[in-house]
Protein backbone atom coordinates (compact mmCIF):
# COMPACT_ATOMS: atom_id res chain seq x y z
CA UNK A 1 0.00 0.00 0.00
CA UNK A 2 1.20 3.48 -0.84
CA UNK A 3 1.72 5.94 1.95
CA UNK A 4 1.31 9.59 1.12
CA UNK A 5 1.82 12.71 3.20
CA UNK A 6 0.31 15.99 2.06
CA UNK A 7 1.25 19.31 3.63
CA UNK A 8 1.97 17.65 6.93
CA UNK A 9 3.25 19.80 9.75
CA UNK A 10 3.75 18.50 13.26
CA UNK A 11 4.47 20.97 16.02
CA UNK A 12 4.97 20.71 19.75
CA UNK A 13 5.43 23.69 22.06
CA UNK A 14 5.94 25.95 19.04
CA UNK A 15 8.76 23.75 17.74
CA UNK A 16 8.33 22.29 14.28
CA UNK A 17 9.07 18.59 14.50
CA UNK A 18 8.07 17.65 10.99
CA UNK A 19 7.42 19.68 7.88
CA UNK A 20 6.62 17.55 4.85
CA UNK A 21 4.81 19.29 2.00
CA UNK A 22 4.61 16.11 0.01
CA UNK A 23 5.96 12.58 0.30
CA UNK A 24 5.02 9.37 -1.44
CA UNK A 25 6.25 5.97 -0.31
CA UNK A 26 5.55 3.33 -2.89
CA UNK A 27 3.67 0.27 -1.75
CA UNK A 28 5.25 -3.12 -1.29
CA UNK A 29 8.77 -1.74 -0.96
CA UNK A 30 11.14 -1.40 1.96
CA UNK A 31 11.91 2.24 2.66
CA UNK A 32 14.60 3.39 5.05
CA UNK A 33 14.22 6.77 6.69
CA UNK A 34 17.69 8.05 7.40
CA UNK A 35 18.72 11.04 9.41
CA UNK A 36 20.64 12.24 12.43
CA UNK A 37 19.14 12.06 15.92
CA UNK A 38 16.39 14.56 16.46
CA UNK A 39 15.64 14.88 12.77
CA UNK A 40 12.01 13.88 13.15
CA UNK A 41 12.26 10.26 12.03
CA UNK A 42 10.25 8.90 14.95
CA UNK A 43 7.72 11.69 14.55
CA UNK A 44 7.27 10.65 10.94
CA UNK A 45 6.53 7.10 12.01
CA UNK A 46 4.18 8.25 14.73
CA UNK A 47 2.23 10.49 12.43
CA UNK A 48 1.84 7.67 9.92
CA UNK A 49 0.71 5.34 12.71
CA UNK A 50 -1.78 7.88 13.96
CA UNK A 51 -0.09 8.35 17.34
CA UNK A 52 0.54 12.01 16.68
CA UNK A 53 -1.83 14.24 14.85
CA UNK A 54 -0.38 16.76 12.40
CA UNK A 55 -1.32 20.37 12.94
CA UNK A 56 -2.15 20.64 9.29
CA UNK A 57 -2.09 18.22 6.42
CA UNK A 58 -3.08 14.63 6.11
CA UNK A 59 -1.65 11.15 5.87
CA UNK A 60 -3.18 8.50 3.65
CA UNK A 61 -2.48 4.80 3.67
CA UNK A 62 -3.68 3.09 0.54
CA UNK A 63 -5.71 6.18 -0.21
CA UNK A 64 -7.57 6.00 3.09
CA UNK A 65 -7.02 7.88 6.32
CA UNK A 66 -4.77 6.49 9.01
CA UNK A 67 -6.19 3.56 10.94
CA UNK A 68 -4.69 1.24 13.51
CA UNK A 69 -5.88 -1.84 11.63
CA UNK A 70 -3.65 -0.99 8.69
CA UNK A 71 -0.45 -0.53 10.62
CA UNK A 72 1.94 -2.70 12.61
CA UNK A 73 4.42 -0.76 14.73
CA UNK A 74 7.67 -2.11 16.10
CA UNK A 75 8.80 0.25 18.85
CA UNK A 76 12.40 1.00 19.61
CA UNK A 77 11.95 0.23 23.31
CA UNK A 78 10.60 -3.04 24.59
CA UNK A 79 6.90 -2.45 25.21
CA UNK A 80 5.09 -5.42 26.61
CA UNK A 81 2.31 -6.20 29.02
CA UNK A 82 3.37 -7.88 32.22
CA UNK A 83 2.18 -11.20 30.87
CA UNK A 84 3.53 -14.10 28.85
CA UNK A 85 4.93 -13.70 25.38
CA UNK A 86 1.97 -15.67 24.10
CA UNK A 87 -0.50 -13.24 25.69
CA UNK A 88 1.38 -10.32 24.21
CA UNK A 89 1.36 -11.81 20.73
CA UNK A 90 -2.29 -12.64 21.06
CA UNK A 91 -3.47 -9.24 22.24
CA UNK A 92 -3.46 -7.54 18.85
CA UNK A 93 -5.11 -10.57 17.24
CA UNK A 94 -7.85 -10.63 19.84
CA UNK A 95 -8.47 -6.95 19.34
CA UNK A 96 -8.95 -7.63 15.66
CA UNK A 97 -11.57 -10.21 16.48
CA UNK A 98 -9.79 -13.24 15.07
CA UNK A 99 -10.94 -16.73 16.00
CA UNK A 100 -8.89 -18.89 18.34
CA UNK A 101 -7.78 -21.19 15.53
CA UNK A 102 -6.64 -18.35 13.33
CA UNK A 103 -4.81 -16.72 16.22
CA UNK A 104 -2.96 -19.93 17.01
CA UNK A 105 -1.95 -20.45 13.40
CA UNK A 106 -0.56 -16.97 13.05
CA UNK A 107 1.29 -17.01 16.35
CA UNK A 108 2.82 -20.37 15.62
CA UNK A 109 4.01 -19.24 12.21
CA UNK A 110 5.41 -15.94 13.44
CA UNK A 111 7.17 -17.37 16.45
CA UNK A 112 8.72 -20.06 14.28
CA UNK A 113 10.02 -17.56 11.75
CA UNK A 114 11.46 -15.31 14.41
CA UNK A 115 12.85 -18.21 16.41
CA UNK A 116 11.00 -17.37 19.60
CA UNK A 117 8.82 -20.46 20.01
CA UNK A 118 10.80 -21.47 23.08
CA UNK A 119 9.90 -18.13 24.73
CA UNK A 120 6.13 -18.37 24.41
CA UNK A 121 5.47 -18.99 28.08
CA UNK A 122 8.09 -16.61 29.40
CA UNK A 123 7.19 -13.25 30.90
CA UNK A 124 7.48 -10.77 28.06
CA UNK A 125 8.70 -7.94 30.25
CA UNK A 126 11.67 -10.01 31.36
CA UNK A 127 13.31 -10.76 28.00
CA UNK A 128 16.80 -9.84 26.94
CA UNK A 129 17.33 -7.14 24.32
CA UNK A 130 17.63 -9.53 21.42
CA UNK A 131 14.76 -11.73 22.53
CA UNK A 132 12.51 -8.73 23.05
CA UNK A 133 13.30 -7.39 19.62
CA UNK A 134 12.43 -10.71 18.00
CA UNK A 135 9.18 -10.97 19.92
CA UNK A 136 8.27 -7.42 18.88
CA UNK A 137 8.87 -8.42 15.27
CA UNK A 138 6.83 -11.58 15.75
CA UNK A 139 4.02 -9.50 17.20
CA UNK A 140 4.03 -7.26 14.15
CA UNK A 141 4.21 -10.24 11.81
CA UNK A 142 1.12 -11.80 13.36
CA UNK A 143 -0.92 -8.78 12.51
CA UNK A 144 -0.34 -9.11 8.76
CA UNK A 145 -0.83 -5.42 8.32
CA UNK A 146 -0.24 -3.83 4.90
CA UNK A 147 2.16 -1.31 6.44
CA UNK A 148 4.89 -2.14 8.93
CA UNK A 149 6.77 0.60 10.79
CA UNK A 150 10.06 -0.21 12.47
CA UNK A 151 11.78 2.30 14.74
CA UNK A 152 15.54 1.62 14.89
CA UNK A 153 15.11 -2.17 14.83
CA UNK A 154 18.79 -2.86 15.55
CA UNK A 155 19.37 -0.24 18.21
CA UNK A 156 20.87 -1.17 21.54
CA UNK A 157 21.71 -4.80 20.85
CA UNK A 158 24.89 -6.48 21.98
CA UNK A 159 27.42 -7.27 19.27
CA UNK A 160 26.59 -10.92 18.55
CA UNK A 161 22.84 -10.30 18.57
CA UNK A 162 23.34 -7.26 16.40
CA UNK A 163 25.35 -9.24 13.82
CA UNK A 164 22.83 -12.06 13.76
CA UNK A 165 19.87 -9.79 13.33
CA UNK A 166 21.70 -7.64 10.81
CA UNK A 167 21.97 -10.62 8.54
CA UNK A 168 18.56 -12.08 9.27
CA UNK A 169 16.53 -8.94 9.00
CA UNK A 170 16.23 -8.81 5.20
CA UNK A 171 14.83 -12.34 5.16
CA UNK A 172 12.48 -11.57 8.03
CA UNK A 173 11.30 -8.42 6.35
CA UNK A 174 10.62 -10.43 3.22
CA UNK A 175 8.20 -12.55 5.26
CA UNK A 176 6.11 -9.42 5.79
CA UNK A 177 3.97 -9.05 2.73
CA UNK A 178 3.68 -5.32 3.25
CA UNK A 179 5.13 -1.90 2.75
CA UNK A 180 7.97 -1.58 5.24
CA UNK A 181 9.13 1.70 6.67
CA UNK A 182 12.29 1.46 8.68
CA UNK A 183 13.88 4.25 10.66
CA UNK A 184 17.60 4.30 11.35
CA UNK A 185 20.46 6.73 11.87
CA UNK A 186 22.91 4.15 10.55
CA UNK A 187 23.47 4.54 6.82
CA UNK A 188 24.96 1.05 6.57
CA UNK A 189 21.74 -0.51 7.82
CA UNK A 190 19.64 1.70 5.57
CA UNK A 191 21.52 0.69 2.47
CA UNK A 192 21.51 -2.92 3.50
CA UNK A 193 17.80 -3.32 4.14
CA UNK A 194 16.01 -0.88 1.92
CA UNK A 195 15.13 -0.38 -1.69
CA UNK A 196 14.13 3.24 -1.26
CA UNK A 197 15.63 5.94 0.91
CA UNK A 198 14.22 9.00 2.54
CA UNK A 199 16.66 11.43 4.13
CA UNK A 200 15.16 13.51 6.91
CA UNK A 201 17.03 16.41 8.48
CA UNK A 202 15.51 18.88 10.94
CA UNK A 203 12.02 17.69 10.14
CA UNK A 204 12.37 18.20 6.41
CA UNK A 205 12.69 15.64 3.65
CA UNK A 206 15.91 16.49 1.82
CA UNK A 207 16.00 13.47 -0.45
CA UNK A 208 13.72 10.61 -1.36
CA UNK A 209 13.73 7.91 -3.99
CA UNK A 210 15.45 4.72 -5.00
CA UNK A 211 18.46 3.83 -2.94
CA UNK A 212 21.03 4.15 -5.68
CA UNK A 213 19.61 7.46 -6.87
CA UNK A 214 19.78 9.02 -3.45
CA UNK A 215 23.16 7.55 -2.53
CA UNK A 216 24.85 8.71 -5.72
CA UNK A 217 23.27 12.14 -5.75
CA UNK A 218 23.59 13.59 -2.30
CA UNK A 219 23.24 17.17 -3.64
CA UNK A 220 23.60 18.88 -0.27
CA UNK A 221 25.93 18.52 2.65
CA UNK A 222 23.25 17.39 5.11
CA UNK A 223 22.21 14.49 2.93
CA UNK A 224 25.82 13.48 2.40
CA UNK A 225 26.43 13.57 6.13
CA UNK A 226 23.28 11.56 6.80
CA UNK A 227 24.60 8.98 4.39
CA UNK A 228 27.79 8.86 6.39
CA UNK A 229 29.92 10.50 3.73
CA UNK A 230 32.86 12.72 4.48
CA UNK A 231 32.24 16.19 3.15
CA UNK A 232 35.50 17.85 2.21
CA UNK A 233 36.38 21.06 0.39
CA UNK A 234 38.67 20.78 -2.61
CA UNK A 235 39.54 23.68 -4.83
CA UNK A 236 36.59 25.62 -3.52
CA UNK A 237 34.22 22.78 -4.33
CA UNK A 238 32.38 20.63 -1.82
CA UNK A 239 32.89 16.94 -2.33
CA UNK A 240 31.21 13.99 -0.59
CA UNK A 241 33.26 10.85 -0.15
CA UNK A 242 31.78 7.51 0.97
CA UNK A 243 33.79 6.29 3.99
CA UNK A 244 35.14 3.15 2.33
CA UNK A 245 36.31 5.16 -0.69
CA UNK A 246 39.03 7.06 1.18
CA UNK A 247 42.32 5.24 0.71
CA UNK A 248 45.93 5.99 1.55
CA UNK A 249 48.25 7.05 -1.21
CA UNK A 250 47.91 9.35 -4.20
CA UNK A 251 45.08 9.18 -6.76
CA UNK A 252 42.80 11.19 -9.05
CA UNK A 253 41.40 13.24 -6.19
CA UNK A 254 43.88 13.51 -3.41
CA UNK A 255 44.14 15.15 -0.07
CA UNK A 256 46.48 15.65 2.78
CA UNK A 257 45.36 14.40 6.19
CA UNK A 258 46.74 15.57 9.50
CA UNK A 259 46.82 12.61 11.83
CA UNK A 260 45.30 13.14 15.30
CA UNK A 261 45.05 9.59 16.51
CA UNK A 262 46.44 6.22 15.53
CA UNK A 263 44.21 3.52 16.95
CA UNK A 264 45.47 -0.03 17.11
CA UNK A 265 42.49 -2.31 16.48
CA UNK A 266 44.74 -5.36 16.35
CA UNK A 267 43.32 -6.75 13.08
CA UNK A 268 43.50 -3.33 11.48
CA UNK A 269 44.73 0.15 12.31
CA UNK A 270 42.44 3.16 12.25
CA UNK A 271 43.83 6.56 11.53
CA UNK A 272 41.73 9.48 12.66
CA UNK A 273 42.51 12.99 11.61
CA UNK A 274 41.51 16.00 9.63
CA UNK A 275 41.44 17.05 6.04
CA UNK A 276 41.39 20.75 6.54
CA UNK A 277 38.79 21.19 9.25
CA UNK A 278 36.82 18.08 8.42
CA UNK A 279 37.25 15.03 10.64
CA UNK A 280 37.82 11.83 8.71
CA UNK A 281 39.11 8.38 9.44
CA UNK A 282 40.72 5.70 7.37
CA UNK A 283 41.41 2.04 7.99
CA UNK A 284 44.83 0.66 7.21
CA UNK A 285 45.49 -3.07 6.98
CA UNK A 286 48.10 -4.26 9.46
CA UNK A 287 51.47 -5.10 8.11
CA UNK A 288 52.34 -1.74 6.67
CA UNK A 289 54.32 0.62 8.83
CA UNK A 290 51.67 2.71 10.67
CA UNK A 291 52.24 6.44 10.68
CA UNK A 292 52.49 8.45 13.86
CA UNK A 293 50.55 11.21 15.49
CA UNK A 294 51.25 14.56 13.98
CA UNK A 295 52.26 13.07 10.66
CA UNK A 296 50.70 14.11 7.45
CA UNK A 297 49.73 11.41 4.98
CA UNK A 298 48.25 11.55 1.54
CA UNK A 299 44.84 10.04 0.79
CA UNK A 300 42.78 9.76 -2.32
CA UNK A 301 39.11 9.18 -3.00
CA UNK A 302 38.05 6.20 -5.10
CA UNK A 303 34.58 7.56 -5.48
CA UNK A 304 33.10 10.91 -4.74
CA UNK A 305 30.16 13.11 -5.51
CA UNK A 306 30.09 16.79 -6.08
CA UNK A 307 27.76 18.87 -3.95
CA UNK A 308 26.16 22.16 -4.71
Amino acid sequence: MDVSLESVRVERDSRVLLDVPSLLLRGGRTVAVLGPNGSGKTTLLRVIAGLDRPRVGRVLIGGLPVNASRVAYVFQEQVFLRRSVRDNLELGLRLRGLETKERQVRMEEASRLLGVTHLMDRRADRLSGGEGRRVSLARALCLRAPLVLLDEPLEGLDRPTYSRLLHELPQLLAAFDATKLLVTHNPGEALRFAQDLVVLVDGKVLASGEKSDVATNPHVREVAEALGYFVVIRDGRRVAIPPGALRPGPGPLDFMMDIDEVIDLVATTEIAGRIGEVHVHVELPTGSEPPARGDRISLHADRFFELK
Partner: protein
Amino acid sequence: MTEQFLVIVLRTLIVSGTATAMAVLVGFPLGYGIARRSFRGRTLLLGFINTGMGMPPVVVGLVVWVLLVRSGPFGDLDLIYTRTAMVLAQFVIATPIVVGFTTASLQALPPRLADLLFVLGAGRMRTMWILAREAKLGLAATIMAAFGAIVSEVGASMIVGGNLERSTRVLTTAIVTETSRGEIERALVLGLILLGLTFIVNLALTIIQQRR
Protein backbone atom coordinates in the same frame (compact mmCIF):
# COMPACT_ATOMS: atom_id res chain seq x y z
CA MET B 1 -21.61 -8.06 74.10
CA THR B 2 -20.64 -10.15 71.09
CA GLU B 3 -23.92 -9.66 69.29
CA GLN B 4 -23.81 -5.91 69.79
CA PHE B 5 -20.24 -5.79 68.53
CA LEU B 6 -21.08 -7.95 65.54
CA VAL B 7 -23.77 -5.48 64.50
CA ILE B 8 -21.31 -2.60 64.80
CA VAL B 9 -18.65 -4.43 62.79
CA LEU B 10 -21.08 -5.29 60.03
CA ARG B 11 -22.34 -1.75 59.92
CA THR B 12 -18.76 -0.41 59.76
CA LEU B 13 -17.96 -2.74 56.87
CA ILE B 14 -21.10 -1.82 54.96
CA VAL B 15 -20.72 1.93 55.40
CA SER B 16 -16.99 2.12 54.70
CA GLY B 17 -17.13 -0.59 52.07
CA THR B 18 -19.85 1.22 50.16
CA ALA B 19 -18.02 4.53 50.40
CA THR B 20 -14.79 2.92 49.16
CA ALA B 21 -16.57 1.25 46.25
CA MET B 22 -18.19 4.55 45.26
CA ALA B 23 -14.87 6.38 45.56
CA VAL B 24 -13.20 3.84 43.30
CA LEU B 25 -16.00 3.97 40.74
CA VAL B 26 -15.78 7.74 40.55
CA GLY B 27 -12.14 8.29 41.41
CA PHE B 28 -10.56 5.78 39.10
CA PRO B 29 -11.91 7.15 35.80
CA LEU B 30 -11.12 10.66 37.05
CA GLY B 31 -7.57 9.68 37.97
CA TYR B 32 -7.22 7.88 34.66
CA GLY B 33 -8.37 10.93 32.73
CA ILE B 34 -5.97 13.20 34.56
CA ALA B 35 -3.07 10.80 34.10
CA ARG B 36 -3.59 10.29 30.40
CA ARG B 37 -4.47 13.72 29.18
CA SER B 38 -2.49 16.86 29.49
CA PHE B 39 -4.54 19.99 29.75
CA ARG B 40 -4.12 23.46 31.01
CA GLY B 41 -4.34 23.67 34.76
CA ARG B 42 -3.45 20.02 35.22
CA THR B 43 -0.71 20.76 37.72
CA LEU B 44 -3.07 22.98 39.63
CA LEU B 45 -5.69 20.25 39.72
CA LEU B 46 -3.16 17.67 40.91
CA GLY B 47 -2.06 20.04 43.66
CA PHE B 48 -5.69 20.49 44.63
CA ILE B 49 -6.21 16.75 44.78
CA ASN B 50 -3.11 16.25 46.86
CA THR B 51 -4.52 18.80 49.27
CA GLY B 52 -7.78 16.85 49.24
CA MET B 53 -5.84 13.80 50.16
CA GLY B 54 -4.49 15.58 53.16
CA MET B 55 -7.71 17.38 54.09
CA PRO B 56 -8.72 16.67 57.68
CA PRO B 57 -11.66 14.28 57.59
CA VAL B 58 -13.35 16.17 60.40
CA VAL B 59 -13.51 19.24 58.17
CA VAL B 60 -15.21 17.17 55.51
CA GLY B 61 -17.65 16.01 58.17
CA LEU B 62 -18.35 19.58 59.17
CA VAL B 63 -19.02 20.68 55.60
CA VAL B 64 -21.30 17.72 54.92
CA TRP B 65 -23.12 18.42 58.19
CA VAL B 66 -23.70 22.03 57.23
CA LEU B 67 -25.07 20.92 53.87
CA LEU B 68 -27.37 18.23 55.24
CA VAL B 69 -28.65 19.90 58.38
CA ARG B 70 -32.32 20.88 58.27
CA SER B 71 -31.56 24.55 57.93
CA GLY B 72 -29.02 23.82 55.19
CA PRO B 73 -29.39 23.63 51.41
CA PHE B 74 -30.16 19.90 51.41
CA GLY B 75 -32.03 19.82 54.69
CA ASP B 76 -35.22 18.60 53.07
CA LEU B 77 -33.56 15.31 52.20
CA ASP B 78 -33.64 14.36 55.89
CA LEU B 79 -30.22 12.75 55.60
CA ILE B 80 -28.51 14.12 58.68
CA TYR B 81 -27.58 11.51 61.29
CA THR B 82 -28.16 8.63 58.89
CA ARG B 83 -25.88 5.97 57.45
CA THR B 84 -26.34 7.58 54.04
CA ALA B 85 -24.83 10.79 55.39
CA MET B 86 -21.86 8.85 56.69
CA VAL B 87 -21.33 7.09 53.37
CA LEU B 88 -21.47 10.49 51.71
CA ALA B 89 -18.89 12.05 53.99
CA GLN B 90 -16.59 9.03 53.75
CA PHE B 91 -16.97 9.07 49.97
CA VAL B 92 -15.80 12.69 49.90
CA ILE B 93 -12.82 11.80 52.07
CA ALA B 94 -11.86 8.73 50.03
CA THR B 95 -12.25 10.01 46.47
CA PRO B 96 -9.24 12.38 46.41
CA ILE B 97 -7.15 9.53 47.80
CA VAL B 98 -8.28 7.23 44.99
CA VAL B 99 -7.71 9.89 42.33
CA GLY B 100 -4.26 10.76 43.65
CA PHE B 101 -3.09 7.16 43.88
CA THR B 102 -4.59 6.20 40.51
CA THR B 103 -2.92 9.10 38.76
CA ALA B 104 0.40 8.23 40.33
CA SER B 105 0.24 4.51 39.56
CA LEU B 106 -0.80 5.13 35.95
CA GLN B 107 1.90 7.71 35.46
CA ALA B 108 4.39 5.12 36.69
CA LEU B 109 3.56 2.83 33.77
CA PRO B 110 5.91 2.83 30.78
CA PRO B 111 4.75 5.68 28.54
CA ARG B 112 4.84 3.62 25.36
CA LEU B 113 2.24 1.23 26.72
CA ALA B 114 -0.63 3.49 25.82
CA ASP B 115 0.89 3.96 22.36
CA LEU B 116 1.19 0.23 21.92
CA LEU B 117 -2.45 -0.30 22.79
CA PHE B 118 -3.45 2.41 20.36
CA VAL B 119 -1.59 0.91 17.42
CA LEU B 120 -2.89 -2.55 18.27
CA GLY B 121 -6.34 -1.13 17.85
CA ALA B 122 -7.62 -0.97 21.43
CA GLY B 123 -10.50 1.44 21.95
CA ARG B 124 -10.72 3.85 24.87
CA MET B 125 -12.55 1.51 27.23
CA ARG B 126 -10.32 -1.41 26.39
CA THR B 127 -7.20 0.65 26.87
CA MET B 128 -8.39 1.83 30.27
CA TRP B 129 -9.13 -1.75 31.30
CA ILE B 130 -5.75 -3.07 30.18
CA LEU B 131 -3.81 -0.20 31.73
CA ALA B 132 -5.72 -0.74 34.95
CA ARG B 133 -4.65 -4.36 35.00
CA GLU B 134 -1.06 -3.41 34.25
CA ALA B 135 -1.14 -0.98 37.12
CA LYS B 136 -2.62 -3.62 39.39
CA LEU B 137 0.12 -3.10 41.90
CA GLY B 138 -0.91 0.48 42.40
CA LEU B 139 -4.64 -0.13 42.36
CA ALA B 140 -4.66 -2.61 45.19
CA ALA B 141 -2.66 -0.10 47.20
CA THR B 142 -5.19 2.56 46.27
CA ILE B 143 -8.11 0.59 47.65
CA MET B 144 -6.19 -0.24 50.80
CA ALA B 145 -5.31 3.37 51.33
CA ALA B 146 -8.85 4.61 50.74
CA PHE B 147 -10.56 1.99 52.87
CA GLY B 148 -7.95 2.32 55.59
CA ALA B 149 -8.41 6.07 55.75
CA ILE B 150 -12.16 6.04 56.09
CA VAL B 151 -12.64 3.01 58.29
CA SER B 152 -10.31 4.53 60.86
CA GLU B 153 -11.65 8.06 60.88
CA VAL B 154 -13.91 9.20 63.69
CA GLY B 155 -14.55 12.94 63.38
CA ALA B 156 -16.72 13.03 60.28
CA SER B 157 -18.52 9.83 61.26
CA MET B 158 -19.37 11.35 64.62
CA ILE B 159 -20.52 14.67 63.24
CA VAL B 160 -22.71 13.50 60.37
CA GLY B 161 -23.74 10.16 61.84
CA GLY B 162 -24.48 11.18 65.40
CA ASN B 163 -23.17 7.89 66.80
CA LEU B 164 -26.72 6.59 67.27
CA GLU B 165 -26.51 3.14 68.78
CA ARG B 166 -29.07 1.44 66.59
CA SER B 167 -28.30 3.06 63.29
CA THR B 168 -25.08 5.03 62.91
CA ARG B 169 -22.64 3.81 65.54
CA VAL B 170 -19.51 2.34 63.92
CA LEU B 171 -16.30 0.92 65.35
CA THR B 172 -14.49 4.23 65.74
CA THR B 173 -17.37 6.14 67.29
CA ALA B 174 -18.13 3.15 69.52
CA ILE B 175 -14.56 3.27 70.84
CA VAL B 176 -15.01 6.93 71.72
CA THR B 177 -18.30 6.19 73.44
CA GLU B 178 -16.96 3.33 75.52
CA THR B 179 -13.87 5.28 76.53
CA SER B 180 -15.84 8.31 77.62
CA ARG B 181 -18.04 6.01 79.70
CA GLY B 182 -14.96 4.61 81.34
CA GLU B 183 -15.58 1.16 79.85
CA ILE B 184 -11.96 0.61 78.99
CA GLU B 185 -12.14 -3.16 78.43
CA ARG B 186 -14.94 -2.80 75.90
CA ALA B 187 -13.09 0.00 74.19
CA LEU B 188 -9.95 -2.10 73.92
CA VAL B 189 -11.86 -5.02 72.44
CA LEU B 190 -13.37 -2.74 69.83
CA GLY B 191 -9.94 -1.32 69.11
CA LEU B 192 -8.54 -4.78 68.57
CA ILE B 193 -11.43 -5.63 66.27
CA LEU B 194 -10.77 -2.50 64.24
CA LEU B 195 -7.09 -3.39 63.95
CA GLY B 196 -7.97 -6.93 62.94
CA LEU B 197 -10.43 -5.74 60.36
CA THR B 198 -7.95 -3.38 58.74
CA PHE B 199 -5.33 -6.10 58.75
CA ILE B 200 -7.59 -8.65 57.07
CA VAL B 201 -8.66 -6.25 54.35
CA ASN B 202 -5.09 -5.21 53.67
CA LEU B 203 -3.93 -8.81 53.66
CA ALA B 204 -6.57 -9.80 51.12
CA LEU B 205 -5.67 -6.94 48.83
CA THR B 206 -1.96 -7.60 49.20
CA ILE B 207 -2.50 -11.22 48.18
CA ILE B 208 -4.34 -10.06 45.07
CA GLN B 209 -1.62 -7.52 44.39
CA GLN B 210 1.22 -10.01 44.67
CA ARG B 211 -0.37 -12.70 42.54
CA ARG B 212 1.19 -13.31 39.10
